């Protein structure tokens, strides 16, 4: 078989032999996408990745989703209220059907939450959720073990799956529910969600075809895309060329070097969005004694010209950062801005007794973040000005993470996106004192530890008064800013580009999951 057929009860009749030309009905609009990656699998709980979440928003619908301004927009949940400190009651949308034809009810939500708690990738995120219960067909109650303020943030990850479709045994006797990593499970080959698009044909790494779901519940959406052809084009230059030559209509991740070219090209629109992924460096206090001195950490922070990197190296394609959380997140503190001051940095080094400097090793990936190797090189040069000599090694991603895990370098580059789109997540993974039991501080490369900050963030995480919580997180950011537990560089921007007539601006967002169900195409007739 050359094709992976997505066998859906409702589209069993659609047989694809070889490859087919898309049948186009009158008024139908086909969107040809060139993304840097295609979904790894069809099982949305198998892997937590950008590609998978984009796919989730195409073939499934979340209970709630983020708006451009980081508010919650009702999707399959229409209303929600906090019943008591630990219980949230959600009212579900009626009259929604799955691609298979099954009706969507509360039992699907309960089933999906239970499955999320089995998924290796989502288990940790859904740890706070104790249980979920269907009160009636369209009401569900989610109970957390402790008061938990981020339940709605989690609800953006709950894409109800068709529990009936995924229950039972396959012909070869496997459980249809099972989540198998990099394996050949039922769910990795078949999908039934409530989303605007049905997968009709898929060849991994080559192309994925989608067709609009006829019975899609959101009839108010103005989206008029009837078919999607997604071609993964990993090579940056080729992806841009594919758009410029008219081979595709919409691409993601326009590389900084091509921004001007795309901006100036005829018939193509560039869409830039301030991103939410923080890029920075971590100092290994285990290996370098000097890093334990707060004055040295401050000196390093002061010696690095964040604005310069964002302006020149990133060509404006980054927002210089002085804290973890980007604007729009609760906990973002507008007072904390980069504070490049080389003279003060040199003074601090002298005060700490390191006037003559020292030599360190530094590692950075060279194909993970935008311009990562060049950024590391620039930082190394900047550190040379306070007499810290850097031996930099850069390597491809596949080798970088194993190297990072050994923690055998003195400084390491890291980019982090908060899975909950919330400030506390940054602290818990990047700056909390390492605790192997609870798993916090998993990416705290340098073993930085400030128990005061940890206590404040932990307290904030059970504070359900969101305004007070916000205050506490701002305070935590300010404390980390003073103590320099992480060298912040910038938030990496996002750039999409689309052909004329594809009105992509309203459907893309800083979270990097375009809501293509609502995309309006208005190609002028000529």
């Amino acid at each position, binding site marked *: 078989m*050359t094709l992976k057929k997505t066998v859906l009860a409702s589209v069993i009749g659609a047989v694809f*032999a*070889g*490859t*087919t*030309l*898309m049948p186009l009905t009158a008024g139908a609009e086909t969107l040809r996408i*060139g993304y840097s990656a295609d979904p*790894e*699998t069809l099982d949305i709980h198998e*892997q*937590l*990745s950008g590609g998978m979440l984009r796919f989730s928003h195409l073939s499934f619908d979340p209970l709630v989703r983020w708006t451009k301004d980081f508010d919650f927009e009702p999707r399959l949940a229409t209303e929600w209220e906090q019943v008591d400190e630990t219980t949230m009651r959600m009212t579900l949308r009626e009259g929604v059907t799955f691609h298979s034809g099954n009706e969507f009810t509360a039992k699907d939500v309960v089933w999906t939450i239970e499955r999320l708690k089995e998924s*290796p*990738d989502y*288990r*940790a*995120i859904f740890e706070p959720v104790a249980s979920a219960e269907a009160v009636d067909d369209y009401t569900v109650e989610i109970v957390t073990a402790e008061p938990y303020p981020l339940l709605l943030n989690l609800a953006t990850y709950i894409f109800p799956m068709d529990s009936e479709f995924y229950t039972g045994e396959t012909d070869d006797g496997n459980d249809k529910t099972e989540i198998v*990593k*990099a*394996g*050949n499970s039922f769910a*990795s080959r078949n999908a039934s969600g409530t989303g605007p698009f049905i997968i009709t044909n898929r*060849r*991994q*790494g*080559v*192309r994925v075809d989608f067709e609009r779901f006829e019975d899609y519940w959101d009839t108010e959406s103005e989206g008029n895309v009837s078919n999607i*052809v997604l*071609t*993964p*084009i*990993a*090579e940056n*230059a*080729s992806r841009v*060329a*594919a758009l*410029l*030559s*008219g*081979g*595709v209509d919409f691409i993601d991740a326009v590389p900084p070097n091509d921004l001007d070219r795309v901006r100036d090209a005829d018939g193509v629109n560039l869409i830039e969005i301030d991103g939410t992924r923080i890029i920075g460096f971590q100092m290994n206090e285990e290996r370098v004694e000097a890093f334990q001195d707060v004055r040295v950490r401050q000196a390093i922070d002061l010696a690095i010209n964040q604005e310069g990197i964002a302006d020149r190296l990133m060509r404006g394609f980054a927002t210089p950062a002085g804290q973890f959380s980007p604007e729009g997140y609760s906990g973002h503190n507008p007072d904390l801005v980069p504070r490049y001051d080389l003279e003060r940095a040199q003074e601090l080094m002298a005060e700490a007794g390191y006037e003559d400097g020292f030599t360190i090793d530094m590692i950075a990936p060279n194909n993970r973040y935008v311009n990562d190797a060049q950024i590391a090189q620039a930082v190394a040069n900047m550190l040379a000005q306070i007499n810290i000599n850097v031996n930099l090694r850069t390597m*491809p*991603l*596949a*080798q970088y*993470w*194993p190297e990072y*895990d050994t923690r055998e370098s003195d400084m390491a580059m890291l980019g*982090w*996106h908060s*899975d909950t789109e919330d400030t506390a997540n940054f602290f818990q*993974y990047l700056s909390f004192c390492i605790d*192997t039991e609870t*798993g916090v501080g*998993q*990416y705290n490369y340098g073993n930085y530890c400030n128990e005061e900050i940890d206590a404040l963030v932990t307290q904030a995480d059970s504070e359900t008064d969101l305004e007070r919580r916000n205050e506490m997180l701002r305070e935590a950011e300010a404390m980390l800013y003073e103590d320099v537990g992480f060298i912040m560089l910038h938030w990496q921007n996002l750039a999409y580009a689309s052909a004329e007539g594809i009105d992509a601006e309203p459907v893309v967002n800083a979270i990097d999951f375009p809501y293509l169900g609502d995309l309006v195409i208005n190609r002028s007739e000529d």
Partner: protein
Amino acid sequence: MIAFLIKRLMHAILVMFVISVLAFAIQDNLGDPVQQMVGQSVPESEREAIRERLGLNDPFLVQYVRFAKNAVQGDFGYSYFYREPALSVIARHLPATLELVFAATLIIVVFSVPIGVYSAIKPRSPISRLFMGVSIIGISIPVFLTAILLIQIFAIGVTVTLFPGTTGWGAWLNSFFSTQGNMPSFGRGYDLVNVAGNWDTNLATWNGLKHLVLPAVSLASIMLPLFIRLIRAEMMEVLQSEYVKYARAKGISMRRVYFVHALKNTMLPVITVGGVQIGTMVAYTILTETVFQWPGMGLMFLDAINHADIPLIVSYLMIVGVIFVVTNTIVDLIYGLVNPTVKLTGKPA
């Protein structure tokens, strides 16, 4: 003949064995496949469980023996990224690469022989000099640069405004040097025709052929100049030989001398080099396929590297090893046909 083929078969098995050992030995340096399978925030305990399930914690020898045992039965393992047996992943990507190599080879043969022969016969003509000049440039430009230039010129299009557009001749020159683009810049297109099983062909439709042109030209660009120069050099040498002088003196038509008598002897070394180069071309397909998003083995291999998909990497390397052995065998067979004095078994003639 049969003894020769059996010998080559043993050869292939030996090559596969050596490659598999080498590939297994370097797998620790290829990266951590589990890292590629999980989200960044997944705790170490979950990673460890996956590593254990995939058998990645076993010692090298245990892993190798397990692999070898299955490989002998034709099971080369399961690709982590494609979630399919590695061999069927390769089989699915093979036709695209073979068609690309075939098209490039066709371009090379069709252009290199006449051009090479012409510039050997008329070495001083301006056309020959032009060909030689261009071929030097062709050899020196890396294949991905050629590919990107081709995309810019023929897929995206170039607008030239070098000449004054207000004058008639300027406008004409501008439009003469500008290109429209319109050639497809990526992929195989959607008009593929299924031939059999895994094999969807680009060669059966106009649209399919159009998608094939740019990748094939860029793949050919690195070898074509080499072959033109090789054929020219060999031909010039042959033309100096006694038997050609004799044939000319005898009054045989020049056309017959060039294309029947001289060309035949010219081709011997060309075939030898050609056989090796076709193997090398498989390696160049990695670059070409990446730039053109051509869904063949090269692109697949790069994906496998990026995902640290070790079973697929090992299988790919072994299959490429076999392709080398097979092409060399075929070259030796053809060699025997062209020059009957060559004995395949290696005994002195």
